[in-house]
C-alpha cells in the first residue's frame, strides 16, 4: 500500500510538469497582457514598454518559465501583477471561503443522496422510487447558476428577504450570518451532485442486494435496517466514493459561478477575475494548485476504496 501511494505520488510529477507548461503557454498566448490594463487601452507605447520591462514580460518565455517554477520550489508562488498581492496571501484569505463552500456542498450532497438512494433502492419501481428518480434527473438538469439565482429570487418573492450577498463574514466571527451566506450557494452546488450520487447509490445498492451474503443476512432473520446499513451499504458505497472524488474537479468550476453570484471572496472568483485581467502568475498558480488537489483527491479516493473493500489490494 505504501509503495502504491508512493508510486502514485511520483506520477504527480510529470502531470504537474505538463500542467505547468500547458498553463504557462496557454496564458501567454492570450492576446493583450496586463500592461494594457495598467496603461489603459489607449496607453502610449512607452508606457506599455516600461510596464512590460518592469514585470519581466519582455524576457524570453523559457526564462520566465524557469523563473516561475524556480520560485515555486522556493515556496514563492508569485504575486499579482496588478495589485502585487502575493498568491500566498490571497490563498490565506480566500482558501477558507472556498473550502467552507466545498465542505458544505459535500455535506448537503451526501445528506440528500444517500438516504434518497437507499429509500429508492429498497422500494424499486414503487411510486416513491419513481418520484425520487424523477427529482434526481431534475436536479441534474437545472444549471447551478439558475438554481443559485432562484434561491435568491424565491425568498425575495415569498418573504421579501434575500440571503446576504457580499460582505463575507468568517465563521468564527459571525457564525449565523456566515451560515446564511454559505447554505444557499452550497445547496445550488450540491443539488446536481446529490442527484448524480443518488442515482449511483440506488443502482449500486440494487446490485449489492442481489449478493449471496445479503441473502444469508436475511435468512439469519436480521431486520431490514441492519441488512441494509450493516451489510449492503458499505459495499454499495464503493462506486459512490469514487465518483464523489471525480466530482471534486467539476465542483471547482461550480465554485467560480456560485462565488460570483453570492459575492463570496473565494478562489473561484479570484480565478475568474485573474483570467479576465490576464494576471498570469495568479492564474498559473491557481490552476497548478487545483490540478494538484484534483490528483491528490483521486489518490485519496483509491486509498479509501481499499478501506471500504479489503479485497482490493494495490501491488
Amino acid at each position, binding site marked *: 500500500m505504501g509503495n502504491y501511494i508512493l508510486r502514485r505520488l511520483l506520477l504527480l510529477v510529470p502531470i504537474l510538469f505538463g500542467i505547468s507548461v500547458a498553463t504557462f503557454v496557454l496564458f501567454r498566448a*492570450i492576446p493583450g497582457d496586463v500592461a494594457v490594463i495598467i496603461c489603459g487601452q489607449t496607453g502610449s507605447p512607452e508606457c506599455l514598454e516600461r510596464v512590460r520591462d518592469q514585470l519581466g514580460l519582455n524576457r524570453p518565455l523559457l526564462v520566465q518559465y524557469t523563473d516561475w517554477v524556480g520560485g515555486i520550489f522556493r515556496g514563492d508562488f508569485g504575486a499579482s501583477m496588478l495589485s502585487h498581492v502575493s498568491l500566498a496571501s490571497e490563498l490565506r484569505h480566500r482558501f477558507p471561503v472556498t473550502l467552507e463552500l466545498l465542505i458544505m456542498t459535500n455535506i448537503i450532497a451526501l445528506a440528500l443522496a444517500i438516504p434518497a438512494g437507499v429509500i429508492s433502492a429498497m422500494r424499486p419501481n414503487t411510486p416513491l422510487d419513481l418520484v425520487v428518480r424523477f427529482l434526481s434527473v*431534475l436536479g*441534474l438538469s*437545472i444549471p447551478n447558476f439558475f438554481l443559485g439565482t432562484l434561491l*435568491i429570487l424565491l425568498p425575495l418573492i415569498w418573504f421579501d428577504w434575500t440571503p446576504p450577498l457580499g460582505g463575507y463574514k468568517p465563521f468564527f466571527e459571525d457564525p449565523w450570518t456566515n451560515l446564511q451566506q454559505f447554505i444557499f450557494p452550497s445547496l445550488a452546488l450540491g443539488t446536481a451532485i446529490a442527484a448524480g450520487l443518488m442515482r449511483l447509490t440506488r443502482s449500486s445498492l440494487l446490485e449489492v442486494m442481489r449478493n449471496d451474503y445479503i441473502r444469508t443476512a436475511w435468512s439469519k432473520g436480521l431486520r431490514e435496517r441492519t441488512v441494509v446499513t450493516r451489510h449492503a451499504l458499505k459495499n454499495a458505497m464503493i462506486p459512490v466514493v469514487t465518483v464523489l472524488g471525480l466530482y471534486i474537479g467539476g465542483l471547482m468550476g461550480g465554485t467560480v459561478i456560485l462565488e460570483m453570484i453570492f459575492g463570496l471572496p473565494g478562489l473561484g472568483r479570484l480565478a475568474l477575475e485573474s483570467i479576465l485581467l490576464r494576471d498570469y502568475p495568479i492564474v498559473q498558480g491557481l490552476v497548478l494548485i487545483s490540478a494538484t488537489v484534483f490528483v491528490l483527491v483521486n489518490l485519496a479516493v483509491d486509498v479509501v476504496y481499499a478501506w471500504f473493500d479489503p479485497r482490493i489490494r494495490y501491488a
Partner: protein
Amino acid sequence: MAREVAVPAEWELRAERRRYGPLRVLLALRHHPLGVFGLVVIFVLVVTAIGAPLIAPYDPETAPSQTKVLQPPTLDHVFGTDRLGRDVFSRVVFGARLTLEVGLVSVLFGVFGATALGLASGYLGGRVDSIIQRTVDVALAFPALILLLAIMSVLGNPDSGPRQFVIDHTPLSESKNINIGILTVAIGIGMMAGVTRIVRGAVLSEKQNVYVEAARALGATDLRIMAGHVLPNIMALIIVLVSILLPVAILAEASLSFLGLGVPPPAPSWGADLSAARSWLEEAPWWTIFPGTAISLTVLGFNLLGDALRDILDPRLRGRGLS
C-alpha cells in the same frame, strides 16, 4: 432441438447488429416512459429551433419601437420584455436554435475527435498510446471550466485586449468579437479527454475479438480494421456518449455565456440572458425565470432520453460518472 444451436457465426453477428437499428431503439423506448417524455421535449425544442422565425412574434435582438422596458408578461409579450424592451419569448425561442447548434456541433466535434484519438490510442498501442494517454492525464487534471475560460479568453477574442469589468453587476463581456464557432470548438475540445479514455477502453476490449485477428490475417490495413471493423462495433457506445454529452455541452455553453465568456450580446443565449437579468431580479423576475426554465427543460429532456438510450443500448455504462 440440437440443430437450432448450430447457428452459423455470421448470423449471430447480424442479429447482434440489428438490435441497434433506429426502429428497434424507438420500439424499445415504449418501456421507458420518461425517455418518451424526453423525446417529446427534444422534439418540441427541435421544431422551435427550426421554426424560430415563424414562432417568434418579434425580432430577438432589437426592441420593437413603442415598447416599455421590463414589462411583465402580457398578451402582447407572453414572457414580458427585458431591460432593452426586447420580447423575452422571442429571445427564448431563438435561444433554442443557438443552444441546439452549439450543443450538437460541439458534441459531434468532440466525440469525433475523441473517437479518432481513442481508436488510435487503443488499437495502435505503444508509443502512440502513451503520448495520447499522458496528454489526457494532464487535460483531465485541469479544472474543466477554467480550461474553457482560458481557451475562450485565448481564442474567443482575437483582436481586443483584456477588458475592464466590474465583477458584480454588469455583464463581464461587452465585446462582440467572441466567435460562436470558437466557443463551439472550445466546448468540444473540453470534453475530448474524458471521451478519449472511454473510447480507448472499449477499443482495448474489442481488439481482443477474433474478427480483428481474422481481418488482419486477410491483410487488412490498421486503418481499415479501425474504421471498418472496430468502429462499427463500438458505435452503440458512441451514440450513448453523444446523448450523455449533449446536456453537458448545453450546460457548458450556458455557463460560459453566464460568465460573459460565451455567446456575446445581442445574440439570444439563455445563459447570457440569465446573467443580464440577474441585476433586475427584483424588478423583472420573468426575465430570469423563462430562459432559466428553458435551459432546465432542455437539459432535462436530453438527460431523460440519454438515460433511456443508455439502458437500451449499453447497460454497461450505467452509473458512469459522466454526467
